[in-house]
Every structure is written in C-alpha cells, then in structure tokens.
C-alpha cells in the first residue's frame, strides 16, 4: 500500500511550550489508523499540524508522496485532507444543511455536492430529519455526526477525526463508529484520535500510542491490545503507574460567540 500521509520528525507547540517533540507517523491508502494517548499528549496538536492550522517548528508533512508544508490549510482541503475537529466545531447559528453545504465549499467537492449530500444524509439519517435545525441546538451526538458528515462533504482521501466519541453516550458512540467503518469501506483512509482506547482498537487496523509528544508504541490493533504499555496505561481497570498529570496545553480557541448572520 502506498503512503497517503506521512509526518516525519514533527516538532510543534504553542508559544514557549513544546507539545510534539519528535513525532513520525504514516497512514497508508485504505487504512484505518488510530492515535491514542492521554490528555495533553499532543493528539489534537498532531491533527492541527497535519491539516495546516498550526505551523510546526520542524519536521515534514507529506501527502500522497509530496511535501505539503508550504501549502495553506484551506488549500490542503483541495488535496483531499479533511478534519472533523476536536469539540465538533460546527457552525452553531447555521442550519444542518448549511453546515453540510459549507463542507463542500472546496472546488474539489463542489461539482459532486448533490450526490455527496445525499450520501451523507443516507449515512446519518438523523441529520436528514434535522436539515433545517440550527446546529447549535442539537445534542452532542448529533453535532458529532454533523461534524463528520461535514468533513465527508469535502470528498476526502484522508478523513481525520479528533475524539469522535468524546462525551457521547455508549449507544451513540456505536452509531458514530458504524458510520466511520462504513466510510472506510468506501475507500477513504482514516486517521482518528481517541481516548476511548478499547473502542478505537475495536475498529482500527493499526495504532500509535502518543506520550509526551512522541510515538511511544506502534503496531497492529492486536499488538497494541496485547502490549504492556497500552494495557497498563489505558486498558487496566485502574491505572497502576500514574505519573504526574501532564499539563494540557490548549490551542487558542477560535470559536467565537455571536458572529454575523
């Protein structure tokens, strides 16, 4: 399988605080890869670097074999990278349908908008029934589905999902995961960030464990499940070696109140 996305030796952070020390990972075509790690280990920073929202201090990001370090975030969408960001970040005052239409704003996606919209509504029937509702008034699960649907509207080659199960009821997590698997079956490569390690490893082909801004472990889903590191840190009923709690460095929020329209 050819490499679709590769991050090599990425160093990144905010202000003076280093978040990613030296991160390298690869997603191949057709793969479903999960990135797991504790709070503050750098998972969201990784998604911000690969989508171009955050400029790394060092290292290289390549997509489909070409370095894309100098390509602006909005142009990376045209290449086929699409992110459903942490905290969903739907446009709260816009309707569900408007949110989805914005997902296909790119030139890449616009010609096939009608078809993609029908596909997304088919994948998430709940969104179809909420078409004209304001996104901000929906439940967390519905907003998550909207965020994923919006990302799919760009017709990505690589879909990146940041904590798709965060804050959702177990039944809803199942719905969301089913949709992710169906998307993967249609040939979209998927990189997803999770804290819900058990759930993540149930669908991923491979996984990376991120700790202190580095890849601490990598392997197939089975290898991760059986590794001592993952068992102790994430799967054990009680954590056995709790080090000092890592400091969570939040990216500067650009979610704005109000807005216009």
């Amino acid at each position, binding site marked *: 399988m050819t490499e679709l996305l590769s991050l090599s030796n990425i160093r990144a952070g905010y202000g003076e605080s280093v978040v990613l020390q030296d991160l390298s990972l690869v997603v191949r075509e057709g793969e479903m890869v999960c990135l797991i790690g504790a709070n503050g280990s750098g998972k969201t920073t990784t998604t911000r670097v690969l989508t171009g*929202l955050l400029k790394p201090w060092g290292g290289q990001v390549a997509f489909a074999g070409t370095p894309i370090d100098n390509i602006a975030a909005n142009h990376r969408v045209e290449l086929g990278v699409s992110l459903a960001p942490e905290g969903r970040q739907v446009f709260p005052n816009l309707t569900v349908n408007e949110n989805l239409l914005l997902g296909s704003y790119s030139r890449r996606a616009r010609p096939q908008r009608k078809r993609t919209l029908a596909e997304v509504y088919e994948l998430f029937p709940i969104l179809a029934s909420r078409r004209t509702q304001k996104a901000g008034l929906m439940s967390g699960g519905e907003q998550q589905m909207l965020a994923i649907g919006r990302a799919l509207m760009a017709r990505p080659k690589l879909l990146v999902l940041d904590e798709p199960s965060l804050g959702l009821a177990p039944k809803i997590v199942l719905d969301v995961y089913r949709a992710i698997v169906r998307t993967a079956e249609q040939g979209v490569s998927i990189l997803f960030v999770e804290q819900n390690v058990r759930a993540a490893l149930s669908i991923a082909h491979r996984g990376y464990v991120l700790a202190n801004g580095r890849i601490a472990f990598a392997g197939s889903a089975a290898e991760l499940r059986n590794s001592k590191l993952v068992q102790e840190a994430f799967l054990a009923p009680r954590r056995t070696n709790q080090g000092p709690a890592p400091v969570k460095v939040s990216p500067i929020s650009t979610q704005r109140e109000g807005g216009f329209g």
Partner: protein
Amino acid sequence: MSLLPQFLIDSILLGGLYTLMAIGFALAFGVTRIINFAHGEFIMLGAYAAFWLFTGWGLDPLAVMPAVIVLGFACGWLLFKAFIERVLTAPNINQILLTFAIGLVIQHIAVILWSGNSRSTTPEYALKALTIGDAFIPYGRLIGCGVAVLLVAMLIAWLKWAEDGRAVRAVAQNSDAATLMGINVKGIYALSFALSSALGVATGVVVSFIITVTPFMGFPMLVKAVAIVIVAGMGSIVGMVVGAFVLAFAETGFAYYVAEGSGWAEGVAFVLITAILIIRPYGLFGDAEA
C-alpha cells in the same frame, strides 16, 4: 392635529436608513472583529460623490449609485489590503487607533479639497412631498428608505444563499472551522470589509439628498451605528433591524414630544448606549456570553 401619523412615518423612514447604516458598519466588525471607526467617513465620501456628480454633471444620485458602490468596494478592498490586514492579530487598541486615524485623515483631506461648507444635493424628488391627510411624506426620504431596504434585503439574500455569503457567516462564527472547509479566511475578511465599505458609500449616496453634506457628517453617523449594534447585540441581523428602528423611534419621539427636544435628539444615541451597557451589556438580541 395629531402628531402621531407624522411621528410614525418619520420614524419608519429614518429606521430604514439606519438599518442600512448599521448593517454596513456591523458587517466588517462581525467578520473581522475590527471596529471600523472610519465607516462614517465612507458614508461622507459616498455623499460627496453623489453631490459632485449631481452638481458637476447633473447626474442623479440614484443613477450613479451602482458606480459609486463599485468604487466604494474597490477602495474598501485596497484599504483592507494596505492597512487593516496588518493589524488582524494586533491588540485591539492598535486596531482602534488605526481605523480612527484613517477616518481622521479622510475627513481632513475632505476639508482641504472641498472646504468645510455645508452642501446639499437637490434632485427634483428631494424637493417634493406627498401629503396624506395631515401627514407629510418627503419623496426624498421615501426613496432613500426604499433604496436602503432594497440594499439590506440584497445583502441578507446573499448571506443566506450565495456560496461566499455562507462562507462569510461561517468565518464570523468560527474561523478555524471555516479554514477546514477550504475557505480562505483572509479573503473573506477582505470581501466583508470591501462590502461594508460599499454599503457605507451607498448610505452616503442615500443621505446626500436628505441631509446636508459636510466633511464632518461621518462621525455622528458612526456613533449611531455603534449605538444600534450595542442595542442589538452582536450576531443578529434581525436584532440590527430592531435596533435601527428603536433608535429611529427614540430620536423622532424625543424631537416631537419633548419640549425643545429636537435639539437634544442627536444625544439619544448616547443615552441608549449608556442605558443598554448598564442594563443588558450583551444587547437585546446578543448571547449573554458574547
């Protein structure tokens, strides 16, 4: 003779104008989060453009309006690219000083070029009025209000249905998420600022045949636009329309029903700003967290 019909007519006609003035101002602010203190000067430039084209060439203000709007759009775009874009991430005080300074410079260039004299544009319709019973409806104000409502309706339709209009709303709500949609956020900032300037000069063209044109006419209008945005709260076009009419009714009511009120009416905007900021700082239609 009852003052009521006349009061209602005057308030409504003024409210339409105020809506255009406030929405033009709020568009740039809502999207770029930079308060354009030079917006009043764009109104002034639009009014002078209409005045000179009428006085020099006999061109009707309404006929030249599309051309003036295009010119205002271009000037707004250039202003954004040359100055505003450089302070997008600067502290608020730098942004305020910059736009305030731009306003002062434009105002004084106008004084140098055209002197401080009051001028008025007098197309034929500005001198006529319609009388219904006791009420008196100046055609100029009626036409001005009509044009203003038309422009606002066009803007709302564009924001609602056009691809880039939707992108403007998306950027106003969450610029990072908008970037992830493939939207060029800085491009949308420039577009919003340019459109805001275009609406500013359009406001100027409309008021050119209603009030007197001077280099200093911009600032009081800016204050009123700010008052309307504060009354409305950020983020709601409906709120902006309501705010515009609140101010129009308050000013007109003050002028009609308070002894010696017409002299004080101009101060009503300040009273509204103060009152709303004390009682409901997020505005009538804004979110409490905003």
